[in-house]
């Protein structure tokens, strides 16, 4: 069986010539019945395609060099981030309305340094080993946090007790089949409640090339890519978990990076090797979150007022539209 490249005589200019039957007659790769031979022919065809593509690229590069100054600017490849549907709630850094809102919302006392964050971490009923260990590690990452076991207590009754004991935030890690898969983050004195779906949780021992234990120093916080109003409020929620004054001696940084509506959490220790180079070493657990719903008051599934819910049929259809 000959290969099909003989038919591509390299003239795209004239009208498409009728199918020329060369000698020997050419087969298309998909007509070969024998799987092994077909696979082999396909690989050969692929290699040829790659060669042609490389040759084309070289030719284009030569042309570009030859033109020198007059070469047309390079084409920018399309990425999902480039093609993202413009969200009208994107925050403009100079927007006054947004700054006014942020000065008066529930996080204002935190950002005005009136309150010190105190976090309560708990789980759903009967947590299994992995979840328990994850809670402990999370408690080492977030300063001033306490882990309490939930023994069948109703959240609605825990919350007033927490408020009485001066807790500012509540984290509930939901577990299913021995792995943590959900996170409820609630800012306590009637703050917003965010419900996330948690995935790819890695404990400290599962992280390769990790450093030593995180120390007691207060870490810095990096929040990346929270562009819309919704993203902004979620970002503030995360920022409110950590005390306001990071201790730079500790050289630890907690990162919440939002990419295409997935929030990646990482905890690193950094060191500046020179003024242009920094090395980072991952400590601490890592996980990814996806926002499912944001509720205005504290946790109340039945009567709460939802600011935002993820509606699958409307929001998942467009691949270029993101909400955070």
């Amino acid at each position, binding site marked *: 069986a000959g290969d099909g490249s003989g038919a591509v005589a390299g003239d795209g200019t004239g009208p498409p010539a009728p199918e020329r039957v060369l000698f020997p007659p050419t087969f298309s790769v998909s007509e070969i019945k024998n799987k092994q031979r077909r696979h082999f022919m396909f690989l050969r065809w692929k290699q040829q395609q790659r060669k042609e593509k490389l040759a084309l690229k070289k030719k284009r*590069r030569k042309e570009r*060099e030859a033109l020198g*100054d007059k070469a047309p*600017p*390079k084409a*920018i*490849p399309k*990425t*999902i*981030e*480039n093609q993202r549907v413009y969200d009208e709630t994107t*925050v403009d*850094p100079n927007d006054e309305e947004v700054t006014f809102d942020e000065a008066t919302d529930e996080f204002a006392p935190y950002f005005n340094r009136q309150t010190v964050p105190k976090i309560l971490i708990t789980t759903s*009923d009967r947590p299994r080993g992995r979840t328990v260990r994850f809670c402990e590690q999370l408690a080492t990452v977030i300063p001033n946090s306490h882990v309490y076991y939930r023994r*069948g207590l*109703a959240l609605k009754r825990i919350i007033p007790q927490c408020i009485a004991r001066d807790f500012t935030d509540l984290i509930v890690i939901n577990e299913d089949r021995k792995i943590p898969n959900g996170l409820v983050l609630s800012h306590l004195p009637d703050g917003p409640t965010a419900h996330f*779906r948690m*995935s*790819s949780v890695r404990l400290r021992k599962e992280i*390769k*090339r990790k450093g030593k234990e995180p120390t007691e120093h207060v870490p*810095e*916080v*990096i*929040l*990346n*890519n*929270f*562009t819309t109003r919704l993203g902004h409020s979620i*970002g503030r929620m995360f*920022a409110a978990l950590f005390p*306001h*004054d*990071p201790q*730079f*001696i500790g050289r630890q*940084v907690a*990162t919440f*990076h939002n*990419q*295409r*509506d*997935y929030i*990646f959490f*990482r905890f*690193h220790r*950094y060191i*500046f090797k*020179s*003024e*242009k*180079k*920094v*090395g*980072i*070493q991952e400590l601490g657990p890592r996980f*990814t979150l*996806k926002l499912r719903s944001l509720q205005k008051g504290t946790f109340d599934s039945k009567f709460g007022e939802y600011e935002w819910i993820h509606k*699958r049929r409307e929001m*998942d259809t467009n691949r270029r539209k993101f909400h955070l």
Partner: protein
Amino acid sequence: SSQVVWSMLGNRQFCSYKMTTKTQNFCRNEYNLTGLCNRSSCPLANSQYATVREEKGRCYLYMKTIERAAFPRRLWERVLLSKNYEKALEQIDENLIYWPRFLRHKCKQRFTKITQYLIRIRKLTLKRQRKLVPLRRKIERRENRREEKALIAAQLDNAIEKELLERLKQDTYGDIYNFPIHAFDKALQQQDAESESESDAEREEDDDEDVDKREFVEAEDSELSDFEDMDKLETSSEEEQEEEEEVEKKASHSKSKGKTPLKGPARRKRPYIEIEYEEETEPTTKTKAA
């Protein structure tokens, strides 16, 4: 005739309600009093029989007598039992007054058990119910896939390093780190950028990217390739940009073919999917200025 029925069905031949296990025989008949397959508990083999069954939280006493054996529709007589436990027991007693002891006893036992589980149901519904939400396989798969792609597109290490360097430049760390030189460097770079931008307005953006890109290339590629390319081309600014783009192209090429080894502990992620990325020019980040 009940004897005949039993000797046929129960003992020897096939009874469709009978379920055998290793140790016991069970009876699946809904009117069976004890649930076992016995001579005295089989509703088919006893012409006088009684059961207690509950429907929607109310208990009924069902009775079957020999006089109605010919009328299958009227066979089972149903009596509603009172909600009060003791009164219901008395009702059972008076309805089954001259009936065999076995049936009376077993009926009361069954009634007791039913009331107990009804109470438990009512108590549990008051407590917190666990809501089971079914996972949809297609959606789970889709979300996992999108998460992987988002992770690759995010390039977390690079992003974090960039952010930290930004903060260093903006002096948020104060006097901890002694890198005074970089201020001069930055001023120099800015001056260069300005002089180049005077010549060509288009080049401004490229230059700004250049400033960042230069850092990138240093970190990513091996030193050798840098020097090689520098020797080949002239050192004019335009060509430098092209050189860097070429070098980047080369790097991405060679990375895709797996020839250059990965450099450094921080660059351990190798994307399986070649997603060409362009950085956003203004990522909105929160800087915690002390």
